[in-house]
């Protein structure tokens, strides 16, 4: 078990190092970055903000990881967030109970995911095109639901999901951590992980080996839709309103980026949900760091792009092999240590 843990840490080392470096940079540009106080019944500080604000992308990246592992992609998650936020807001504002609202909203997310999955698995449409349909149409659907305005609500229990706290942590943090653990355990303690990876590497060979790749693809896209629904609920609850024009806008790209930074290849196959979650936190750390730094907003995108380019270059296979070439003795050491540990 401990050997497996060491393996996992070694695999995630580049992501963890990147996160540590970004956090250190943040601390350098903003004094008190690591300060955490306890106030109003919850932990409070910039680090908590990173965890809290990163929730939507983290949650989207959970579903996105599984989709990308099957060699697919889901461009619609941002739009599905908007739809689900709009549906949730209009139901809760219309006087429905919290459980009914949540059930209906998550149901809508699942339906959106199944729609994508059906286009990909049953009609064999390329995922990028199949999900582009809902990406474009979804925001329009959301605007129909909200009738073009920011649909506000005052239900305290619904708002609690976005800005409440439990166990000293903001609800969104608890939700993404819990969802990440549940999904990661589900795929790794069952055979889903192996089957998803097999379908992603070679769908035809997997089908010939008896893998039910259609059901698997449907399930994976449905999961992505469910994650988008949860993220949409959080985003709406956070601002006590559903903003069909802006909720989840461009977040599909951040989610894809989180998955890639997390070490899952866009070519499918091997995946790591934990890696994607760390990737989401890296992205949010960059965002928060930029906001704290006080640079003029004209530099936001340039700084973000530059940091991400550096992360991706450092992680690329080419530079990894370069590293091995430059410092061969470094690579040998930990292996010997590991052997002793076993």
């Amino acid at each position, binding site marked *: 078990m401990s050997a497996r843990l060491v393996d996992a840490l070694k695999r995630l080392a580049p992501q963890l190092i990147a996160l540590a470096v970004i956090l250190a940079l943040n601390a350098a540009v903003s004094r008190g970055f690591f300060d955490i106080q306890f*106030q109003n019944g919850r932990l409070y500080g910039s680090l908590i903000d990173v965890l809290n604000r990163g929730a939507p992308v983290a949650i989207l990246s959970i579903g996105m990881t599984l989709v990308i592992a099957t060699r697919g992609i889901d461009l619609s998650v941002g739009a599905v967030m908007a739809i689900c936020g709009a549906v949730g807001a209009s139901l809760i504002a219309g006087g429905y109970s919290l459980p009914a609202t949540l059930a209906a909203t998550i149901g809508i997310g699942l339906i959106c995911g199944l729609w994508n999955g059906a286009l990909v698995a049953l009609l064999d449409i390329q995922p990028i095109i199949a999900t582009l349909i809902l990406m474009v149409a979804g925001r329009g659907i959301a605007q129909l639901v909200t009738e073009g305005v920011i649909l506000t609500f005052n239900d305290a229990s619904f708002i609690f999901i976005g800005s409440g706290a439990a166990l000293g942590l903001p609800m969104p943090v608890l939700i993404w951590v819990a969802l990440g653990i549940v999904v990661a355990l589900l795929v790794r303690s069952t055979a889903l992980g192996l089957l998803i990876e097999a379908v992603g590497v070679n769908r035809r060979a997997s089908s010939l080996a008896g893998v039910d790749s259609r059901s698997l693809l449907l399930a994976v896209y449905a999961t992505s839709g469910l994650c988008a629904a949860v993220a949409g609920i959080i985003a709406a609850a956070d601002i006590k309103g559903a903003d069909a024009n*802006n909720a989840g806008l461009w977040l599909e790209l951040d989610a894809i980026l989180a998955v890639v930074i997390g070490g899952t290849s866009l070519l499918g196959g091997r995946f790591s949900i934990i890696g994607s979650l760390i990737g989401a936190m890296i992205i949010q750390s960059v965002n928060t760091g930029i906001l704290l730094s006080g640079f003029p907003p004209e530099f936001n995108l340039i700084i973000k792009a530059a940091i991400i380019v550096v992360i991706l270059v450092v992680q690329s296979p080419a530079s990894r092999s370069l590293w091995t070439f430059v410092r061969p003795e470094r690579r040998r050491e930990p292996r010997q240590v590991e052997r002793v540990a076993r």
Partner: protein
Amino acid sequence: MKNWKLSAGAALIASLVATSAMAAGMTVGFSQIGSESGWRAAETSVTKQEAEKRGVDLKFADAQQKQENQIKAIRSFIAQGVDAILLAPVVATGWDQVLQEAKEAEIPVVLLDRQIDAPDSLYLTAVTSDQVHEGKVAGDWLVKEVGDKECNVVELQGTTGSSPAINRKKGFEEALAGHDNIKITRSQTGDFTRTKGKEVMESFIKAEGGGKNICALYAHNDDMAVGAIQAIKEAGLKPGTDIKVVSIDAVPDIFQAMANGEANATVELTPNMAGPAFDALEKFKADGTEPKKWIQTESKLYTQSDDPMKVYEEKKGLGY
């Protein structure tokens, strides 16, 4: 004393308002961009109300964000022989041809809420707000509010590079010029959205000693202010008291916040562009008076003392 500083344009409107109710029987075509925002929806409903009030027969065409639809609508208005055309242009260029056609048919065209790149002989007048002035009104309020006290302001900008963001920032800074006790200490974009407004405000509070160093927030629109108010509350501070909040647009939700004492002031971007337009048209039809080429709408300041709940109820019905 509320509108303690009226611009020349606003004064002009005030004089025009007095001469209304002469346009009964006029047929006017209105080519609207679409309904992409709450403000746009409100503009449409106010235009319809204003037309009804004056007995104007309004022909409404929704272009769904497409210039070709607007050109088609204008041609159809010309063919129907309307008395005048209102145009809220979706883009600034490409209007010369169709406006020339309207001019040849001797139908006056009034532009609403946006200017275009075309010779001003092709249209009667343009009714728009002055975004720099909006920022200035907000800044002037703050200068008056804080007096001689030291005040560090944080600013939530609109989408980086957009003209409202540039102009509202400029006007605000103009108002602050010469008042060295008021400083903008942090300025960051909130993309005009609630979510970003809240997130950026959280970071401002963290970066400025838990919010203790912030005296006021200036947001380029009300939505960002609404998001920021939540962030201030969650940080354990009182918005409107610990941190003063001034923003622009005057959408209904900010009035609710003002009623709760959580926001202090907002500058109205009026959805009533049609009123001044009808007034100008009536004058022109009556005796051929050519209005100025730019009619500036009033940038009205609302504060907590303006019975925000009443304004909220009024505005709520406009489709914001």
